[in-house]
């Protein structure tokens, strides 16, 4: 693996940049979570608060940087990248879709039922 040494120029600068980016995103998340702007809470998009959508998008944004930069996914071959990323994303989306739909259905059943659960 001697060729490795020749190939890798130092990218410490880039690493620190990514760290600052991840920190800023986390700080934004925490600030939003503490002040909870009324506008973002009252507006819903596809039956979820806008604030929660922002949190999820920012999380995926962070996950992208961790995988691409820290785990060197950008340096891997297209085949390896797709084998890992596409597989995981497809299966996770599928699982989430099924479970959340089912959870919402159970909630409706509880609510519409003749039994009271709050006693």
């Amino acid at each position: 693996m001697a060729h490795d040494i020749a190939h890798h120029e130092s990218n410490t600068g880039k690493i620190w940049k990514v760290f600052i980016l991840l920190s800023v995103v986390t700080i934004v998340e925490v600030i939003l979570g503490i002040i909870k702007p009324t506008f973002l809470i009252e507006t819903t998009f596809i039956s979820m608060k806008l604030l929660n959508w922002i949190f999820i998008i920012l999380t995926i944004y962070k996950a992208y940087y961790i995988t691409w930069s820290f785990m060197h996914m950008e340096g891997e071959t297209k085949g390896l990248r797709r084998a890992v990323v596409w597989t995981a994303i497809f299966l996770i989306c599928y699982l989430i879709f099924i479970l959340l739909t089912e959870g919402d259905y159970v909630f409706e059943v509880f609510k519409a039922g003749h039994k009271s659960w709050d006693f």
Partner: protein
Amino acid sequence: MDTAVAKTGTEDKTWGGGNEPLKASYGKMMMWFFIVSDALTFSGFLAAYGFSRFKFIDSWPIADQVFNHFPFLHGVDAPMYYVALMTFILIFSSVTMVLAVDAGHHMKQKKVIFYMFLTIIGGAIFVGSQAWEWKNFIKGEYGAIETKGGQILQFVDTDGHRVALADIAIFDAHKNRVQHENKNGIWYENEATLPTYTIDEIRKGFAKRNDVVIRTQVLTEKGEKTILSREESLKRLQNDAIGIVEGANLVHNEYGTPLFANFFFFITGFHGFHVLSGVIINIIIFINVILGTYEKRKNYEMVEKVGLYWHFVDLVWVFVFTFFYLV
């Protein structure tokens, strides 16, 4: 080397074997495949959490009201600050790990040692913080009332601040119910710890506190917990309450539905176990680096492989942080 296999005449062709289309070593590829399967395990947990949360969407506990402790700040409401700090520590240990990998590419042993050391320290602090979070969660702070239907009722004053059971209960000195221990009577029989207060002591105390009302689990339109009027509170406590809950375990939970506690223990526990094993693997590799194993091997790919695992642990935490504490 001579083998018994006949030459096929395709040795220099693509299908002749021996080529690496993914240009990754065996170990690194296996680490990636492990990470994919582990990611699916965590997704299973988090999706199950989502399922349960959607099922109880109108009564799920609010994380800000559960995780609001900060070390040395007793009684101060500090929602999420500590988890945010933990997140930083983990991200930072990820950064030092990637710096160690980078130093490894340039065969700088001293730098690898330094950065891996920082990574291990960061991981240890994180695991310790998680243990502290668990301790607070298990111990609870204010205590609550459980109803016949398994609902949780909490006490708040007129400003909406929580009131602890200890401030409400009127202690009955004449109560004669003592915990049965196995040293008394039949030696092999004992019972679980008795609650600190009986429900009657709470009822008696609550009747005298006109400034205290009950907060239920049910969320209002605005996403806040419902606060009952004084009359409703008295009625609720008289008719429905059956006992008190202090802290949380897998069956009772003073913060709300027991499912919340179950998922908290399972998901953060499973993640904490990953961090712990990550720290141990890091220590093993750290010792190898000090011993100069990878100097002799003339490559630091082992550091890169444990680095992959460590970043994965960080990646999972980013999601756990969002879905447990933020959303």
